[in-house]
């Protein structure tokens, strides 16, 4: 690798991370607006026109807030936990192809890389819960670990069908294999399992048990304040973007759009982002609609429904491929 290539990669990383951080800021704004309108209210309105500067105000507030460390907290772990979360979430971005020729690293094991990093992200939650020296945070961390065990498996198995059809774990190859039709048409069960598990994986409602505010105050980040809390927040929204991006790539045909009339002139990135944001909107929507699952019911759902469904999907896909 020449110095030029390394330089280009650095610039790519810089651009991508900046864009994603802006995405995080405005995804929070968007979520508050969308849920606000669903709940017959307006959402943020006061900072800037229609509250457009609200995320910036929030960021400034978080950045300058006092950083409180609970007494008897396990300090090194307490410091490192949110950092693990953000690093895991941001490094997953490296393999996401925003359009055909743009991805920072075109790995042959793209899917495995993302699954590995999303499991790593769960450690930040468990460690944060453990290190805070707070019982609520502790319970939140325990819930997160149980949730991770249940849903990692389902999420991995649901992608096996896609890998079998595409014959590759490379994300670009998977999108190219969908030039005739998106995989959602042939893998609807896997898509369902993936979307549901992705919600559990990113700790969003109705599976937001590690941070269930009515039970565990704020769950694993109860004791976090200021920018450390902000890092958890950032990790959650980046993870949401990544999970939606993976769903788009594996099931919805990635950057490919309809190839006729004016549609063929629309840039690939636009198609990609439309699909990703449609999924993110879906996330917001169910958060406004559904109550929260109970801990044991969530486990039951994962082990008794999603994993068998994903396994059945693999068997069926295998049989169809064989004959």
């Amino acid at each position, binding site marked *: 690798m020449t110095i030029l290539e390394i330089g280009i990669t650095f610039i790519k990383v810089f651009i991508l991370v900046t864009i994603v951080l802006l995405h995080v800021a405005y995804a929070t704004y968007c979520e508050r607006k969308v849920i606000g309108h669903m*709940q017959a209210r307006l959402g943020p309105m006061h900072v800037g026109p229609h509250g457009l500067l609200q995320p910036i105000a929030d960021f400034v507030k978080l950045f300058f807030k006092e950083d409180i460390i609970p007494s008897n907290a396990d300090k090194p772990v307490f410091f490192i936990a949110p950092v693990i979360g953000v690093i895991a979430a941001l490094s997953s971005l490296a393999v996401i192809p925003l359009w055909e020729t743009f991805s920072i690293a075109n790995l042959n094991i793209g899917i495995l890389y993302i699954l590995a990093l999303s499991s790593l992200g769960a450690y930040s939650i468990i460690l944060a819960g453990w290190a805070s*020296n707070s*019982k609520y945070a502790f319970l939140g961390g325990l819930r997160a670990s149980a949730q991770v065990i249940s849903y990692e498996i389902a999420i991995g198995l649901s992608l096996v069908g896609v890998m079998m059809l595409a014959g590759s774990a490379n994300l670009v190859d998977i999108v190219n294999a969908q030039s005739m039709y998106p995989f959602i048409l042939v893998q609807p069960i896997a898509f369902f399992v993936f979307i549901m598990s992705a919600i559990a994986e990113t700790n969003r409602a109705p599976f937001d048990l590690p941070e*269930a505010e009515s039970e565990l105050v704020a769950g694993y980040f109860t004791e976090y304040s200021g920018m450390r809390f902000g890092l958890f927040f950032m990790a959650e929204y980046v993870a949401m973007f990544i999970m939606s991006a993976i769903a788009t790539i594996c099931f919805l045909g990635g950057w490919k759009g309809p190839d006729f009339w004016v549609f063929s002139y629309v840039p690939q990135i636009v198609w990609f982002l439309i699909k990703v944001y449609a999924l993110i909107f879906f996330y917001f929507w169910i958060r406004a609609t559904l*109550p929260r*699952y*109970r*801990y044991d*019911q969530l486990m039951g759902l994962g082990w008794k429904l999603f994993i068998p469904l994903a396994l059945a999907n693999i068997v069926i896909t295998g049989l169809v491929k064989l004959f």
Partner: protein
Amino acid sequence: MGTTKYSLNNDVKSGSLATEELTLSFGPQHPAAHGVLRLVLQLNGETVVRCTPYVGYLHRGIEKLAEHRNYFQIIPLTDRLDYVSSMTNNIGYCIVVEKLFGIDVPERAKFIRTIAAEMSRILSHLLWLGTHALDIGAMTVFLYCFREREKFIDLFERLCGARLTVSYPRIGGVRNDIGNNWLEDLYKLTEEFPMRIEQYETLIDKNRIWLRRTKGIGVISAEDAINMGLSGPLLRGSGVAYDVRKFMPYSAYDKVKWEVPIGKNGDVYDRYRVRMEEFRQSNSIIRQCIEKISSGPIMAQAPKFILPPKDKVLTDIEHLIHHFVLITKGAQTAHHGEIYVATEVPKGELGFYIVSDGTGKPYRMRIRAPSFVHISALPKLCEGALVADVVANIGSIDIVLGECDR
């Protein structure tokens, strides 16, 4: 964590790894502990082994304060019992004192009280539904409930100037008459309201997650419910059709047609269903009252106990003297002894027990607050349940700590 040090090796060798119950102090500052409720939970993992409620964080000594006030000065104190539905407390108190004094309330005042009490019940149940749903995680219902609550509270504001602590009823009637405009607006609201109830039900009642979170959780059998002294929707949810409004009718409840909704299994879901049906019944009671209300006086004719009209006081010496005597000495009752009257408030059976020694102030006033009794059911409901069920149970017993601690 951290304080106790285990010698892990020895435990592993002897085959008995030490385990310990986790003591979790749930409240008084907790987003799901309504008001300042404090529960100490002994947890084994996520399972509740023991649940001990602690009360008294909102104690203001209302019963003691009442001993130093004239009967008509106690009304604002009763606002602060169940502050979510102050109207029903006021009415409950006024009915007791009227019985003590032997006053008959005019027909129109009875209807106005019934309308106001049922509006108050709707208000209280709306707050219950919103917070209960929010605890279980359905946050949209909460905001929808507050949208309707606002409309009812606006009507209260037009009725008596206050939104929450109303102090609207008076001993012997109500403070001011209501206009036809007000009744028409309320009637319009009751036309629209059943549609809103259906809206909440669409959001949660047909939702599988909601059903799984509420069905079979926190079961109280009818026998237990009676033995624990539960009342209101808790008792009715267990299948006992007891409602003070039906069995010992007061105000205008015997002049309107309505039913007592009951549940079957006594779980969180049945209590939820009972309250949802009570929305409809209250709505129908309000409509019937508006149709049946006739014009007439709004205060009883009992000058020995009731303050004279203000315009007369300022122009007429006899009324001024009368006013002066009543304010300084209080309304003196000839009745020595004790009296207890219960009324049905949204939370259950609210009773006032007054010992009178013939002076203008009660010798002792004791309040039988439903919330206090209902909190005592909480340990039984929560034992063996999960932490998530604790919040569902707190929501379903619908307690207000102002009433519990008094």
